[in-house]
């Protein structure tokens, strides 16, 4: 066919989301709020870790939670029972939270009265990795029963996170999960990631995790 023209574009597919995420991050910085995007598979322990984190830090800083859930209020009720404000986003089937959803949730949030905001993303190791929410830092949980091979299957998630929490270490004796192999795989993809081994059931390892958060919250105050 004649007259076919090639138009060079080279534009990021998710640039709209990324630009809004940058605005959100800037707004958080101005308000000196540390926002953490917490991601994992369903059942890895996001809500349990959030509850531990709230109990450890609620006396020293003002915490809020944004809950992403496909279609229930179960998690936000648990958080509200701890006495911290929770905003529920029902994604209605969407598999991840994106910057526009967080932007809407933040409009219902009083940033001036918060130091630390936790996003509980939708349980999924694939899609949330692709969408910047505007969070200051990103963390993921991998639980021992899921297996030490997950960095090979979901490499993007391990690449984009600042911290990895390995939960359910109380199951280590019952499985052939190889912690050293996991760490070697993760560090190849992301040499700067911080790794915390915890059990939300026994409370083991939680202080190291909350200490990391404390330092990040402090850093956001400066």
């Amino acid at each position: 066919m004649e007259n076919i023209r090639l138009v060079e574009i080279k534009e990021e597919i998710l640039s709209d989301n990324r630009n809004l995420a940058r605005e959100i991050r800037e707004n958080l910085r101005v308000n000196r709020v540390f926002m953490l995007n917490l991601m994992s598979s369903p059942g890895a322990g996001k809500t349990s870790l959030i509850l531990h984190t709230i109990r450890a830090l609620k006396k020293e800083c003002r915490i809020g939670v944004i809950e992403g859930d496909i279609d229930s209020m179960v998690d936000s009720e648990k958080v509200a029972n701890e006495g911290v404000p929770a905003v529920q986003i029902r994604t209605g089937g969407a598999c991840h939270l994106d910057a526009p959803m967080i932007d809407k949730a933040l409009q219902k949030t009083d940033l001036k009265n918060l130091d630390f905001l936790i996003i509980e993303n939708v349980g999924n190791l694939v899609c949330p990795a692709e969408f910047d929410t505007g969070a200051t830092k990103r963390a993921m949980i991998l639980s021992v029963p899921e297996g030490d091979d997950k960095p090979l299957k979901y490499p993007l998630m391990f690449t984009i996170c600042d911290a990895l929490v390995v939960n359910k270490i109380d199951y280590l004796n019952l499985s052939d999960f190889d912690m050293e192999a996991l760490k070697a795989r993760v560090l190849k993809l992301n040499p700067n990631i911080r790794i915390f081994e915890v059990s939300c059931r026994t409370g083991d390892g939680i202080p190291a995790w909350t200490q990391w958060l404390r330092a990040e919250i402090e850093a956001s105050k400066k």
Partner: protein
Amino acid sequence: MHELPVTESILRIVLRHAEEARAVKVIRVSLRIGELSDVVDEWVQRYFDYLSRNTIAEGAVLRIERSPVVFRCPACAKDFPFDVKRIEDVTCPDCGGNSVEFVSGREFYVKNIEVL
């Protein structure tokens, strides 16, 4: 699983550039997507076919180029592609060093369009 919002973004970008180029029809769309992205090509095309109905991009064919995951050897500054599934065995093909750095594999952009 997130092909629908991704495809909406692709169509928005394509239509904006096609209009700026005063095109009457979009024939082909080339995308560059890194191996680390879990996007299923077939679904992107299906959603694109659905979303682009009654636009000048209706019927356009998507061509998805995959870019490999690339690592760098800090010892000799060599960049090399590697299958992420065998990441434990990753070593520099030149010097054999095994302390490598992740360089790329997350590309996610609309490269160009062919229009009438």
